[in-house]
């Protein structure tokens, strides 16, 4: 279970006042829950993910994961608990390495990286199965570099990489924002399939309102530095596009 207690983030930026990006963020996410976060540009959503993943130390408050204070865990150990996919399709994978090398690297997240060969037939078998389950034919191209893939394929690999190792929390930050609408829908469907099948505790930021209403157990609106509104599953499903636009407009 992930608990955010009164998280606040202020960047001083050299001024005496500073800019408060987050203030009084409280959240409780149970195991297996899939929570959607929406909010305008610059609302602080990515900043919140940086806090949860331990990349950024909050000015106030605590991030507790299964009762452990994330600030007290060393950085490399945190990667054992937090899986993350970023918006930029180029930033979630290593372009000059092959699909297999990317997957083999991701497979060892949170484990000690030993002096043993990374290319084993056991791993090839596991990765081939996982790639096959994506249903986009990448299992036949394991030795191709990621640079040779399309944006959608790259993001699918980035997604697969993030879930190869177990995680306590999966953070998806606008993973479909850089893709065209059709590819965007299929990557989102793929993400949902994995999340539901594996019961991954997930937080997902999205700007795609169709995705926000169709997927996830509940939805939070981040505005004015805190969670301004919460929509339960049935509530958000009942939202019509125009109502949702109004919610955004009020901000």
């Amino acid at each position, binding site marked *: 279970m992930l608990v955010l207690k009164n998280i606040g983030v202020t960047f001083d930026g050299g001024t005496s006042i500073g800019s408060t990006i987050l203030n009084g963020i409280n959240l409780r996410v149970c195991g297996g829950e899939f929570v959607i976060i929406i909010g305008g540009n610059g609302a602080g959503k990515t900043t919140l993910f940086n806090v949860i993943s331990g990349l950024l130390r909050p000015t106030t408050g605590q991030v507790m994961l299964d009762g452990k204070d994330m600030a007290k865990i060393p950085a490399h150990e945190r990667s054992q608990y937090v899986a993350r996919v970023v918006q930029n399709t180029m930033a979630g994978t*290593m372009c000059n390495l092959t699909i297999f090398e990317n997957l083999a690297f991701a497979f060892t997240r949170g484990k000690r990286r030993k002096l043993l060969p990374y290319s084993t037939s056991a791993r090839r078998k596991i990765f081939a199965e996982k790639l096959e389950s994506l249903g986009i034919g990448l299992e036949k191209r394991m030795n191709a570099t990621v640079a040779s893939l399309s944006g959608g394929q790259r993001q699918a690999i980035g997604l697969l990489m993030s879930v190869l190792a177990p995680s306590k929390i999966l953070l998806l930050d606008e993973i479909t924002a850089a893709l065209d609408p059709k590819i965007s829908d299929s990557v989102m469907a793929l993400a949902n399939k994995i999340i539901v099948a594996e019961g991954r505790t997930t937080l997902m930021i999205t700007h795609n309102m169709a995705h926000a209403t169709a997927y996830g157990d509940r939805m939070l609106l981040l505005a004015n530095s805190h969670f301004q509104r919460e929509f339960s599953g049935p509530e958000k499903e009942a939202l019509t596009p125009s109502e949702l636009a109004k919610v955004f407009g009020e901000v």
Partner: protein
Amino acid sequence: MNTLEIVSGVEIGLIYGIAAIGICLTFRLIDFPDMTCDGSFVLGAAISGILIKSGCNPWLALCAATLGGALAGLATGIIHSFFKISNLLSGILTAFMLYSINLRVMGGVPNIPLIGAATIFSGASAIAVLTCTCLTVVAIFTYLLATDFGLALRSVGQSKGVSTNYGVNIRLANAVALMLSNALIGLSGAIFNQHQCFADISQGVGTLVIGLAAVMIGEKLFPCWSYLLIVPACVVGSIVYRIFIGFALHSEILGLKTQDLNLITGLLIIIAMAAPKFRRRSC
């Protein structure tokens, strides 16, 4: 160029090939332009020189020089990660300070002749000794790159963001790669010292550029960057570089002299870098 000169070119190529592997580890694998090398090469030569002179086992002298090089790399790693000094300047500072340390190691004299002392080449064929040593180093480092640990090192040079998200401690990875790299460069300096039978405070000048030339030639010769070829390509590149330089300096038509070496090497690197970039092909 006669056979003897070609053999001598291959020998020097093999020696600098070990340094080239080290330079490839930093410049290519972790994307860290490490300027420590000119200093750590002399450090290796100096440690080996002083130990050989005092009658130490020549293989033990090589081990000591390797260790010395590793410490020089560690120094650069610490200056960079803990004092937050840029990667370029960290190496330059270490190399600069190493000049004093190297002179101290050499007992305050700028030159140690080793005429008649027992070296790894005593009573053996130099080319055989060098080939075996080089093959051992190539085997070790090719294996290293084929492991999970090696893949983590490579990730640092590919994408710091992915590396961090997947739990690689970048400071540690940099320090380890710098240590391995400079250990190899120190070893290369020590072998050079025993091969040439003298240690000199200015022996290291140009190690970086020569090593880089070898790395680039290797990349052109093996454009398909399978991880298994990265390491051997450095050694092959280094040998090809020596033979190329040998022919260039010996050809009557060009009329080049030994002092033109730096000019030719520099131009070679510029041409290699300006040549159309290759993409790593799937193979």
